[in-house]
């Protein structure tokens, strides 16, 4: 995995970047943080962030034209921008100790001459003195301040300057005019800040704005002498001090990162729903009171994009933006335990891969795609925890082998359409497939293909299995004369659309709506809401068709507020993060108090588990009263039954049910216990097989009450069943559980 490949997925994410106002700030002040501190009345911390960026806070509060106000996103709501200058004045006023930072550093080698004690010279001198270089300031006049001395508030500026130099006062040589650089030959570097029209030793024509120096590499420039106004002088003097330090340390000037590489972030966050807040006007001409200052700062919307985090329980739980996820996915790809470890395994396997975060992202960045790369990489490297997807891969294997069936239709070898109901539709209710096929075969030249689109392999990151399955589907498709696929599951549609774009796909619901399917029963204006499967988010035709069909069946529809979120089944996260799965599926069930109409068998299954009133659109159309969703064992049986029934229908005669030896084992199990075991993803087949083997002479344990216990290893899992033999091939289940670790039977 290349870092560039992975970071490319997230590079458009601007979450965590400075806000638009900070880009406009000459000092790159982190205005968000500053205002957040002010809003909480943290004067000292607020002052510190201001002072660290602007050097002389009182001067800047007075002189800065506040270009940030032109970039304040409050204006998008029609509000006045925040009054930064008034806030800065207030922060200065309410901070008791405004002395400069005291740095405990040892003295450094290197001496610097600063020529001119105006704003630029003072700022550079302060920066270098605080780093403990020997700084000497030469000033033609009898005191510092330069052009500032003319200002009506110079007294306040003078106090500010004194405070900032409180702990690091360089040597000031007043009444000393430097006319030749020869006078400064003993200094390692020179900073010339002689003001507008000041002496430049003939070097300003060679001034390099990036390196801040000139043809004489040790001579740096700043302030009015190079045309800067007061604010630009201050802002660039800090840069110059950094450059001079690099020069002192390395002997040559080189570019250091002094600010943002662009002047405009280009991104405004969507503030829809944010309440308007008018500008706080100071009651007194002296400026804001403490409360007014805090209230004005609290108008800051802390502009930063967190849309994906707010849209998804998983992203919200782990609080990571796509950029962070991308960097961790890359780091994980090189992890070699036990010396370095994977950082984001749980997150990787907790993602529904539903694309919802990408759909709300202003830039379309989908964290699921990034995490999917990680799943694929782990599977390829053999470090994926196999147990997390083992169950679904076995279900897929069942659907594509034992329960598979293909036919172009009675007496035919090719067909124009082929019905691909997917692995779950018939598993949930055989009639959904058999009745649909009945209708399709009457209306179209339609065959049938029972199998699986490969989503379980895709979500497990097992692209080897996924591609093998797709190849097999493609070759069947070729044999059938390249028919159009009729799918009943949005996930199947998504998988085919992405993996086999040349195969034409239409949904069953579109065909039914197009042919004006007459429902077998109608209900009278029952108010319901359609819960769209996540994979249908961008499929308007499918979503519209389902609504047309539901309305045609007499259902009154009300739209959901948050449409397009996954029910919880996506990505098959249940084994990796059951708690999160339950939280997500419950939240989806609670999106509306109305009963749901779904058109994804998995949504139906998930909502049934949550006790949500829910019907599949095919229940509605075929007049089927939705029953409790079948448990795992019944689903497998249903799948087999669909295969048998269609074979019988198409080929005639009596297709025998498959003969499975452990089917002779009859389980007696309390309904509540059966559901509890089902939630652990343990099927009745595993229990039957384990008991069958134990009762035929396999390993078995028994207690004084005659309760038995046995185990069964199935690929990545070891299942255990505790049961009571009741005689006549009947066994009462006491408990069933599994573990993922393997037992080495010798020590």
């Amino acid at each position, binding site marked *: 995995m290349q870092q560039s490949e992975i970071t490319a997925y997230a590079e458009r994410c601007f979450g965590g970047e400075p806000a638009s106002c900070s880009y406009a700030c000459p000092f790159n002040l982190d205005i968000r943080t500053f205002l957040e501190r002010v809003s909480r009345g943290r004067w000292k911390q607020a002052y510190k962030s201001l002072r660290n960026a602007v050097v002389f806070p009182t001067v800047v509060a007075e002189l800065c034209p506040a270009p940030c106000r032109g970039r304040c996103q409050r204006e998008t709501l029609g509000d006045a921008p925040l009054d930064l200058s008034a806030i800065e004045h207030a922060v200065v006023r309410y901070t008791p100790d405004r002395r400069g930072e005291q740095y405990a550093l040892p003295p450094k080698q290197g001496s610097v001459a600063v020529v001119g004690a105006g704003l630029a010279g003072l700022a550079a001198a302060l920066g270098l003195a605080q780093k403990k270089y020997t700084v000497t300031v030469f000033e033609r006049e009898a005191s510092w301040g330069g052009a500032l001395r003319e200002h009506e508030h110079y007294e306040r500026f003078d106090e500010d300057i004194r405070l900032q130099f409180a702990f690091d006062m360089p040597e000031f040589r007043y009444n000393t005019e430097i006319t030749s650089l020869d006078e400064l030959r003993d200094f390692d570097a020179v900073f010339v800040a002689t003001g507008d029209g000041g002496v430049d030793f003939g070097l300003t024509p060679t001034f390099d704005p990036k390196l801040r120096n000139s043809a004489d590499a040790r001579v740096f420039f700043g302030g009015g002498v190079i045309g800067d106004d007061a604010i630009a002088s201050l802002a660039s003097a800090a840069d110059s001090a950094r450059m001079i330090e690099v020069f002192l340390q390395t002997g040559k000037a080189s570019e250091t990162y002094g600010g943002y590489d662009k002047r405009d972030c280009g991104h405004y966050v969507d503030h829809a729903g944010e309440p308007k807040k008018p500008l706080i006007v100071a009651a007194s001409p002296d400026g804001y009171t403490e409360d007014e200052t805090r209230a004005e700062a609290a108008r800051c919307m802390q502009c930063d994009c967190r849309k994906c985090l707010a849209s998804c329980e998983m992203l919200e739980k782990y609080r990571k933006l796509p950029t962070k996820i991308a960097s961790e996915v890359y780091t994980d790809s090189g992890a070699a335990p036990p010396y370095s470890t994977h950082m984001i395994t749980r997150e990787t396997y907790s993602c529904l891969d539903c694309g919802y975060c990408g759909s709300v992202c202003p830039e379309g960045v989908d964290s699921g795609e990034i995490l999917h790369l990680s799943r694929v990489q782990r599977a390829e490297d053999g470090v994926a925890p196999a147990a997390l997807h083992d169950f679904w891969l076995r279900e897929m294997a069942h659907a594509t082998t034992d329960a598979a069936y293909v036919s172009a239709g009675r007496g035919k070898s090719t067909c124009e359409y082929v019905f691909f109901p997917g692995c779950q539709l018939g598993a949930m209710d055989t009639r959904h497939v058999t009745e649909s096929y009945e209708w399709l075969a009457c209306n179209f030249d339609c065959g049938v293909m029972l199998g699986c689109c490969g989503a379980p392999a895709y979500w497990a990151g097992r692209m080897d299995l996924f591609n093998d399955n797709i190849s097999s589907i493609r070759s069947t498709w070729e044999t059938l004369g390249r028919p159009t696929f009729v799918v009943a599951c949005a996930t199947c549609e998504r998988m085919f659309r992405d993996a086999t774009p040349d195969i034409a796909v239409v949904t069953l619901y579109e065909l039914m709506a197009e042919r004006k399917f007459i429902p077998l029963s109608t209900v009278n204006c029952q108010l319901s809401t359609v819960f769209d499967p996540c994979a249908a988010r961008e499929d308007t035709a499918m979503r519209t068709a389902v609504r047309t069909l539901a309305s045609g069946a007499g259902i009154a529809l009300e739209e959901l507020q948050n449409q397009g979120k996954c029910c919880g089944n996506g990505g098959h996260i249940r084994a990796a993060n059951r708690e999160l799965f339950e939280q997500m599926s419950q939240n989806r069930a609670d999106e509306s108090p109305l009963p749901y109409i779904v058109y994804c068998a998995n949504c139906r299954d998930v909502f049934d588990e949550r006790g949500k009133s829910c019907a599949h659109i095919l229940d509605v159309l075929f007049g089927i009263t939705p029953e409790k969703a079948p448990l795992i064992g019944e689903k497998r049986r249903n799948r087999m039954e669909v295969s048998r029934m269609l074979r019988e229908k198409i080929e005639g005669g009596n297709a025998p049910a498959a003969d499975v030896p452990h089917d002779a084992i009859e389980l007696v199990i309390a309904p509540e216990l059966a559901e509890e075991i089902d939630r652990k993803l343990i099927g009745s087949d595993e229990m039957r097989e384990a008991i069958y083997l134990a009762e035929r002479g396999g390993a*078995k*344990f028994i207690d*004084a009450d005659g309760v038995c216990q046995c185990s069964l290893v199935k690929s990545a899992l070891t299942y255990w069943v505790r049961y009571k033999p009741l005689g006549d091939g009947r066994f009462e289940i006491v408990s069933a559980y599994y573990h993922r*670790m393997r037992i080495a039977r010798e020590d």
Partner: protein
Amino acid sequence: MDWKCAKCDVELKPKKTLFSYLGNTFSHEVPVCPQCGEVFIPPELAEGRMAEVEEQLEDK
């Protein structure tokens, strides 16, 4: 110990047993048939400590 090995008809005895998961191996004392060596895992162990260790190793 209430449980017996049904095949050997002997009571189980605690024995250090090796477990492995995701490339890590560790030992823990669990009930084992002293004769045939079959290992017995009770539900509270599988869904308790074992599940915890599995989760820790998956998170590594």
